[in-house]
């Protein structure tokens, strides 16, 4: 019975539960450590470092300034020492200065994050709800025309890249129809205090729609597949033999069983969401984490900001997968105690 209690919906902290949490935290720390080491190693291996970059933009720089700069950035120190110094800073909350924004990395991330979070959360909820609903519709109408049409649309959306969808949406809704602004998170030339919520939503709509296209088609196809399986299962046959009606079968067996893969997929798609936001925000010049990351990595070589965003993304992706794990165990008793 102890096995039943761990993760049970009934409360109470058991030893098994504590152990599971210990394992999860251990894994999270190990993951963050690995991500930090790998991304630091990649950044160090880059041929562009602060000195070379400065020399490129300021051709006539004096030797004295170069020496000062090498000292400031610690370029002559061994990489392991630099890594440990950076790691220590991460733990203390000193993530360094962003070279592009001339401000502490954490401040930049904090500001960018709020914009990105609104975008990603909207896209995530939108894709989750429409994806699940569309999957149910396709399964209910399986092999008839609504299913065929929706399935083709989903397969199409799965196959095209996010930035292309963004460009098409821009061309249609902003350029041709003029319903939505071309980019940015707020209207230009308006004081920050006087931006209304409606204006923010107006600016958010197209990027969020673009980003949700990333995962909702995939989710819908998976939900459809699972529901079709459920409808062909022995337990639905048995439910019918026991006189349950269509609605009882759909709500009592269908949705519940289809929810498990949907949750795993939707929480697992947080990583794709971060990846997709880089493209979506770039296309719409949306001032979020994704566009900051693209800028920091590509043209500015803003290594402190770049690594900072990588670490924050890793935390969120880990949290998404962990949530999927825990929720699955709550819904599906067969996965209990399976790490």
């Amino acid at each position, binding site marked *: *019975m102890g096995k*039943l209690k761990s993760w049970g919906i009934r409360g109470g902290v058991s030893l098994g539960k504590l152990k599971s949490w210990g394992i999860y935290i251990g894994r999270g720390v190990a993951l963050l450590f690995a991500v930090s080491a790998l991304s630091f190693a990649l950044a160090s291996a880059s041929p562009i470092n602060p000195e070379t970059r400065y020399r490129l933009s300021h051709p006539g720089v004096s030797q004295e300034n170069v020496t000062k700069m090498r000292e400031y950035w610690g370029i002559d120190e061994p990489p392991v020492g630099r890594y440990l110094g950076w790691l220590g800073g991460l733990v203390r909350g000193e993530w360094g200065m962003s070279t592009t924004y001339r401000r502490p990395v954490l401040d930049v991330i904090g500001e960018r994050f709020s914009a990105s979070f609104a975008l990603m959360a909207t896209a995530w909820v939108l894709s989750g709800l429409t994806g699940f609903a569309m999957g149910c519709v396709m399964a209910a109408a399986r092999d008839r025309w609504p299913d065929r049409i929706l399935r083709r649309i989903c397969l199409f959306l799965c196959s095209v890249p996010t930035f292309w969808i963004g460009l098409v949406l821009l061309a249609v809704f902003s350029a041709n129809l003029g319903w939505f602004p071309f980019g940015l998170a707020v209207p230009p030339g308006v004081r920050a205090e006087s931006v209304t919520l409606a204006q923010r939503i107006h600016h958010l709509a197209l990027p969020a729609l673009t980003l949700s296209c990333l995962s909702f088609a995939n989710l819908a196809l998976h939900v459809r597949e699972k529901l079709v399986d459920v409808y062909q*299962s*022995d*337990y639905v*046959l*048995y*439910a*019918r*033999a*026991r*006189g*349950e009606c269509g609605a009882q079968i759909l709500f*009592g*067996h269908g949705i*519940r*069983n289809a929810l*498990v893969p949907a949750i795993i997929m939707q929480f697992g798609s947080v990583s794709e969401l971060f990846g997709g936001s880089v493209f979506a925000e770039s296309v719409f010049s949306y001032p979020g984490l994704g566009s900051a990351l693209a800028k920091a990595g590509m043209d500015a070589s803003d290594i402190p900001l770049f690594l900072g965003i990588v670490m924050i993304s890793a935390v969120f992706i880990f949290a998404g997968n962990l949530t999927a794990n825990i929720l699955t165990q709550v*819904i*599906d*008793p*067969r996965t209990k105690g399976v790490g």
Partner: protein
Amino acid sequence: MNNILEVKDFSLAFAMYDGVFHRRMLNVITNLNITVGEGEMVAVAGSSGSGKSLLAHGIMGILPQNAVTGGSVLWRGQPMTPKLLKKIRGRALAFVPQSVTYLDPLIRVGRQITRDKGKLGELISRYHLKPEVARLYPHELSGGMTRRIMICAALAGSPELVVADEPTPGLSRHLAEHAMKHFREMADAGAGVLLVTHDIELAIRFADRIAVFYGGTTVETADAADFVNGDGRYPNGRDGGDGAGVGQVTGDSQDAGGDGAGAGSEPDGTGRRQGDGVGLRHPYSKALWAAMPQNGFVPTPGVQPYAGDLPAGCLYAPRCPMRTQACDVAPEPRPLRGGVVSCHHAV
């Protein structure tokens, strides 16, 4: 005795597609007849792949979309319309499925038996399950527990007829007997039980009547007692005077099970009498009987015909030692010595 269920000339076919346009019918069950009365336990026995489970699914109305049925199913004399079926399913008509896959993996078994707490407790203790079992999920059940859970679920609706589809595979001898006793108890309490099984031995011990199923049809319906004294060989030396037919196993005395079980009217484990059978009627039933380990383990050459490739005429003819010209015409079921047989030569 009132008949609860009557299945008359039942047939079942699947629409199949050969290529894109060519649709053909795959006949799985043909000319099947069976009745179940109140307090009666009828076993449909046959080998795997003979379409037995489809018969159970057909009665329950849970066949796949491409299934086409013919003949008639009567419920207490009324035609079983979809409307009637909807009304009685899960209540007067209960289904005991084959395996644990028929339980929803995400729902606690207690709730799958019934939502009525009082009834649940009563059923669970009646089948010697611990109260905690109700809180388990299907994957946590053992084979024997699953079986009992499904029986509880069937009884939750106070059924008049229980259709049980292969309830014993995967169970130990002991548990299988237990399960059969439960069905016997249901019948003794007045319900009809239709048991689909390939375990002929258990069927003989617990059922009242046995319908022998071959190639998608019932070749013989016999009292279970007939099997006890079933003559494994063909009745060449029989004198034909079978009217009263008490234990006529002809002169050959090497009949293995005959005398011992036949003469004695000892009550067996079920508390019922095993009768003095007069032997079986159809050559396939006899072959089935002879193939049982305690009756000599005699194999019969050949295989059951595939549903898509049934022979014209009598389905058993290709394997039958009694086959003649007459067998080119399919035999109609006819009453014989208290049973029903579909054979031109059965006496």
